[in-house]
Structures are given as C-alpha cells and as structure tokens.
C-alpha cells in the first residue's frame, strides 16, 4: 500500500475516534443520569455503552472490519435495549439518538474508503436504521431520531469520501511537483558543477579579492584595476553561460589533461606579473595529471606565490616542476625575508586550508623550509595516477 494511503487511514481513524468516542461517552452520560433506568436495565445499558466505546477504541487503533462490525452490533443492541424499555423519557431517547447517529456511524469514516466500502457502510447503516425504524413503528414515533440517524451516517461517509478524494488528487499532484523539482535540482547541480569546475577562475578571483581586502596596497593601481576588470568579465561570462574564447576556456574548465598545464601555468605567471611578482618557470611543461589533482596543485601553487608576493619582500620567485614515476613535485622558492616555520601556527587558515587542504584532498602534501633572512622554499607533492 502506498504510504500516503496509510497516512490517510491514520487520519480517518483519528476522525472516527473523535466521532465515535463523543457518541459513546455521550450515551454513557445519558444512561447514568439518575432516575432514568433501574436494576438490570441500568446494568445492561451501562455495560453496552462502555462496550461500544471500547469497540470504537479498538477499531480506531488498527482499523479492520471485525471491530467495526462489533461497534455496529453493540450499538444496535444498545438501541434495542433502550428502545424496548417501557417508558422512553427524553434522556433515554437522547442516548438512543446519539448511539444511532454518532457512535455507530463513526465506523463509516474508516470503512467507506475501502474496497467495496460504500456497500459495506450501506449495509451497516441499514442495520442501525432498521432497528431505529422498528422501534419507532412499534413504540414511540421518534422522527427526530430517524432523521439524525440518516444524517449521522451521511455526514460520516461524505466527510471521509471528501478527504479521500482530496488526498488522491493532492497525491497525484505531489508526484508531479516532485518530478518538476527533480528537474530543477538537476539544473542547479549542473550550474554548481560548472562553477566549481571553474577552479582556476576562482583561484584568480580569490587572489584578487585578497589584494582588495588589503586595500590594494603594494600593487600598481592600473594593474589591479585591470585584473579586477578581467575577473569581473570572466565571472559575468560564467554567470551568463556565454560562449567562451580559447584562453578563458582553460580558465573555466581545464578538461584536456595534457596540453593544459602550460597554458594554465602561463595564466598564473601572467596574473602575478601584473601584480608585480615575476615567476620563473623551470622544468616540465607537460604533465599528465587527473583534473582534480591538477586543480589542487595549481591552486596550492597560486596560494604559495601569493604568500611570496605579500610577505617575502622580493619581486621574484622560482617554480621548479619535477616528476618521477609516482609523484609530481613543484617547488616554490624565493630569496626573501623568510620566517621561522615554528612561529607560524599550523592552524592559520590561509596556509592550512588553501595549500595543505587542497593537496590532501587529492592525496598530496606540502612541506615548508624556511628560516629568517634566508628565503623560503615550499615543496608541493601530488601523486601520479
């Protein structure tokens, strides 16, 4: 069974419980009003009212036909016992009416939505109505009770059918909305992927933003302005999904794994040249690396160069790329101020997140060699596939 139908049945049972227990409690309150019944009749009607309530409780706990039949049978018995009493006073008449029009019909709420439910409900309603009519014909003509019995069953059944129809209609629509949302998600995933794939672009954007965060001190105004303008243009291209020219294609999605290294190294070099740091390139220009690894290496490299630019006090750095069967190494060397690696806490976000973090996601690592006054060397290692 579909889950939504289970939920529907649970709601219907709750409604049936409210309806049925109201009736059972009401009838019980009526029959224990002093002076209405005595002796054996009092015992019988009290017992039957309690039993009706118990059956309603059982039925609305788990559902099912047998307990529903129990509710109706006990109700019919209660109606019969009250109806055959010698003097039908208004209190007993009320108890009878409440049982016929509230307690017994409560099972219609849960039953009517079942397979062949309507005919079952009709049969049960006929039993109660027949009992009431027989009493009305043979004894007290109680038209109000007959009317409210019919109304009680009709109300219970129609409310349950309305709820059932509403839930069925909503359920169909929910499936549609779910599918539409799935499409929406796929589109958004695709967009996010494109953005994340543009890691080289984000690296230069981050570098430029860091410069701006330091108010752009130490960089030529014209160069910074041009760099910012270029980055803004590329971000806009990314946002609009416009067709890309060849160089920016490399920046957006470095897909070709071989020839790309030279191009992207070149773009890193140009970026730092514009900001006043000359990067000298040594060693391998072509490396076959998986895209993730390449991105991580280039990103870490960019961060190292940014640190050189900002802290070393020199305007020149060397990058040496070497490789053997298992690893690719990139060494960033400067002849600047240097520092005592121990004094810089490992937790500083810039280095640990952007260099160590990037490399370790692809299984690589970084080591720093430096001492005050004798420059700094950072060794970046990533594994080959």
């Amino acid at each position, binding site marked *: 069974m579909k*889950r*939504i139908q*289970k939920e529907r049945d649970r*709601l219907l049972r*709750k*409604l049936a419980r*409210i309806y049925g227990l109201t009736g059972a409690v*009401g009838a019980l309150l009526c029959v224990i009003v002093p002076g209405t019944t005595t002796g054996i009749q009092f015992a019988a009607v009290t017992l039957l009212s309690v039993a009706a309530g118990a059956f309603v409780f059982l039925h609305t706990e788990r559902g099912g036909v047998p307990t529903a039949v129990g509710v109706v049978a006990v109700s019919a018995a209660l109606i019969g016992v009250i109806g055959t009493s010698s003097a039908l*006073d*208004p*209190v007993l008449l*009320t108890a009878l*009416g*409440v049982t016929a029009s509230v307690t017994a019909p409560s099972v219609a709420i849960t039953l009517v939505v079942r397979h062949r439910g309507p005919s079952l409900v009709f049969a049960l309603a006929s039993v109660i109505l027949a009992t009431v009519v027989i009493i009305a014909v043979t004894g007290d003509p109680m038209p109000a009770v007959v*009317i409210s019995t019919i109304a009680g069953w*009709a*109300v219970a059944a*129609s409310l349950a059918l*309305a*709820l059932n*129809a*509403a839930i069925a*209609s*909503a359920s169909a*629509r*929910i499936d549609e*909305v*779910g599918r*539409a*949302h*799935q499409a929406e*998600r796929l589109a*958004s*995933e695709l*967009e*996010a992927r494109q*953005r994340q794939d543009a890691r080289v672009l*984000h690296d230069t*954007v*981050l570098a430029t*933003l*860091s410069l*701006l965060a*330091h*108010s*752009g001190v130490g960089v030529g*105004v014209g160069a910074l*302005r*041009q760099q*910012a*303008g270029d*980055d*803004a*243009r590329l971000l*806009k291209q990314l*946002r609009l999904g416009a067709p890309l020219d060849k160089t920016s294609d490399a920046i957006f999605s470095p897909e070709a794994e071989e020839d790309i290294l030279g191009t992207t190294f070149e773009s890193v070099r140009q970026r730092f040249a514009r900001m006043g740091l000359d990067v000298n390139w040594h060693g391998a220009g072509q490396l076959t690396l998986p895209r993730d690894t390449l991105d991580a290496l280039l990103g870490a490299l960019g961060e190292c160069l940014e640190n050189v630019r900002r802290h070393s006090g020199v305007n020149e750095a060397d990058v040496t790329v070497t490789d053997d069967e298992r690893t690719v190494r990139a060494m960033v060397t400067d002849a600047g101020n240097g520092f005592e690696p121990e004094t810089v806490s490992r937790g500083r976000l810039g280095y640990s*997140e952007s260099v160590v*973090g990037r490399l*370790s*996601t692809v299984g690589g690592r970084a080591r720093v060699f430096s001492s005050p006054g004798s420059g700094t060397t950072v060794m970046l290692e990533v594994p080959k596939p």
Partner: protein
Amino acid sequence: MSATTTRAGQQPFRRPSRSALAAGDVRERHGGRRLATGVTITAAIVIAADLLRAMMMAPFYPVGVGPWAAWLSLAAILCVGVVSRLVSRANPLPDWLYVLLLVALAVPVWLDVTATWGYLDRGVTPTAAAAAGAVLMPVAAIRGTKVPLAVACAIGVVLATSAFLQAGEAGEYIVVGLAVAVSAVLPTLLAVVAINGFRSLVGRELDLSLVQSTVSTAPSAVGMQASEELAKLDFDAETLLDDVGSGRIAIPLPTAAAERAAAVAARLRARLIEGRTDTWLKHAVTESAYLSNRVVVDDAEGAAGLLSQQQRDGLLLALWLLVGERRKAPAEPIAVRLRCPAIDDDHTTPHVVDIEIEVFGVVLRRLDPATWEAVDSVGRHVLVAEAESFRIEIECQANTASSASATVARDAANPRGS
C-alpha cells in the same frame, strides 16, 4: 559537529520559487478545493437535517413565527456569503466582509434561542442555531480553521447556557438541549480536524517528495543550497570586482570595501573547499522543512554517498517516519552517524558503512512497522534500547558496483587534513 550543520540551522533553506509555488498550489487548489467541496456537501447534510427537525417542531411553537425568523436570517447570511464568494472567485473574501458575516451569525442564533426560550420542557430546541455551527464547516475549509472553530464553540456555549438556564422547568429535557449544543460544535470540530490533518499530511508528503530528489544525486553533489550560495557569492565578487575595475571604487580601497572583499573571499574560499564531504543526506536534511531542525547528520567521511539508491531511499524514509512519531517538543534532535570502519590508505572503495541512528522522544512500540521495513532495506540492523532513547545500528553493505562514480565517492570519503 561540522560547520555545515550549524550553518543549516542559521539559514533556513528556501526552495526555488517555482517548486515552492507548486507546493502551495497543491495544498490550496488541487486537493484543497476538492476537500472544500466535500466539506460543503457534508455541511449541507447537517443543515438539511436541522431544517427537517425545524419543520417537525414548528407545530409545537406556541405563538409567533416559530423557528422561521432565525432560518430566514441564516439563509440571508448564507446567500451573501455564497454570492460574494462567487463574485470574488479568484481572490479570497475581504477580511471585513468575512468578519461581518461571522458576527452576523449571532442574529440567527439569538433569534432561535429567544424563539425557543421557555419551551425546552416540550422538547422544542434551537435548530437554526445548530445549523449556524455547520455553516462554519466550509468556512474552515476555505479560510483558517481557528476562527470558525472558536465561533462554533461560542455558539455551542450559548446553546448549552440557554439549556442550563431553563433547567428549572425543563427537567430531563435539559439533556436534549445539551445534545443540540454539542451537535452545533461536533460537525465543525470534525471538519477542522480533517482539514488540519489534510493540510499537514500534504505538507509532509510534499516535503518528502521534494527532498527525495536528493537521493539520486551523485555522491559528491553540491546540493541546491550550496549551489545557490555559490552563485550568490560569485555574483557578489563580480559586482565588487567590476566596481573596482571600472573605477567606481577608488584604489587604495576604502575600509568598508576592503572588508567586503575580505568577507566575500573568506566565504567563497570556504564554500569552494568545504562541502566536498556533503552528501545527498546532508542536502536532504538541510532542504527539508521537517527534517532540518529535527535531525543532525554526522558524516565527516561522506559515507552516505556510498549507499545505493535503494539504501538511500530506505534511510531517508526511516528518518522521515521516526521524525513523524516524535512527541511535541523533545529537546534532542535525532542523531545520524555514518562511518566507514575499514577506511585506510589503499585506494579501494570501502565496502561497509556503519550507520547509527540515535532517536530521542519516540515511543518504540508506537513506531510504524514501515520504519523497520525501510531500515531493513538499508542493511542489517540491531536495536539498542536505553532509558530515554533508543539506537538503531545498521551495518550496511555499500554496493560499489552501482555507486555512480566510485572514485568521486572515494575522494569524498577521504577528508582533507587527516
């Protein structure tokens, strides 16, 4: 707990507007209209029964117009309500008219009570006043449920009071009077329970169906919230860079602009680096209105990404049903912990995922059996019951063959800085 869970707490996820709109649509239109129609039919049955009773009782009214003044005024109110509803089909009724109609219901109630006053001992009870209670049923289906229910209760109280005040002469007939008072409230109460139940049921199911779309995503998918955030950060950066590039912001930068640049850079960096271990499960919890504050996911290794689609479905549904069984306001959220016990440095994909679900505020025996079906579709489970809570431990065989891309999963499962 990682930063992502706290962020989810601070910033509630907002769905893309189209999905949100469609979601509201289901509740208001598709099912809601049918329910309103059905409730109106039910109300009509109640009113018809009351009218029949009035017809039968009319001869017993000693003098005057009998119950008809009250019924005519009720009919007039109904006419105004129905006609204005038809006229303003698309828009809801203006509030002032709504309030006016509700207040006007006092007229038939008052007319009915005064017409029957003093005749309870002959079995003459209010009829139109009870019908006025039923009139509120469709109102509850169309507008909020609280006000109609309150008005129905007020009518019930008035009828009960009038019955008590006549207790002296009426004797045993007071029971009949009280029964009529209850009959004025009961139909509306039922309708309100049905309508509220329907609305929350649809809301829950809808939320689940929207969140289920996370199940089929790739192991390292970014999630809608993250991708929204990334787009926004990119746009912020673009705006700032463009302002600098075009000279609208001077160099050196003013402090405010520099701080803005620092903030955007920090968030963008965090967004690009973190979130790689976020999986469909985290997205599902973040994006769901029902799960977001009630479930905490601890999955540092991104192990949820290793589960097959069927296992994901089962896990999500199990969490769903567990949350559904929670009592009103337990302090502790349900905690889900996922671990790959056999994780080491050889480059193989882990085969086993251990899942622990620590559940607070749920009565074990009240759980829907479907919960265990769902749990079993994830893996073999062991149940550990404690005083205040219970724990479901699932040992789950990750189906490596079916996982969308094992290498990506492996990357996600291997956190940085380990």
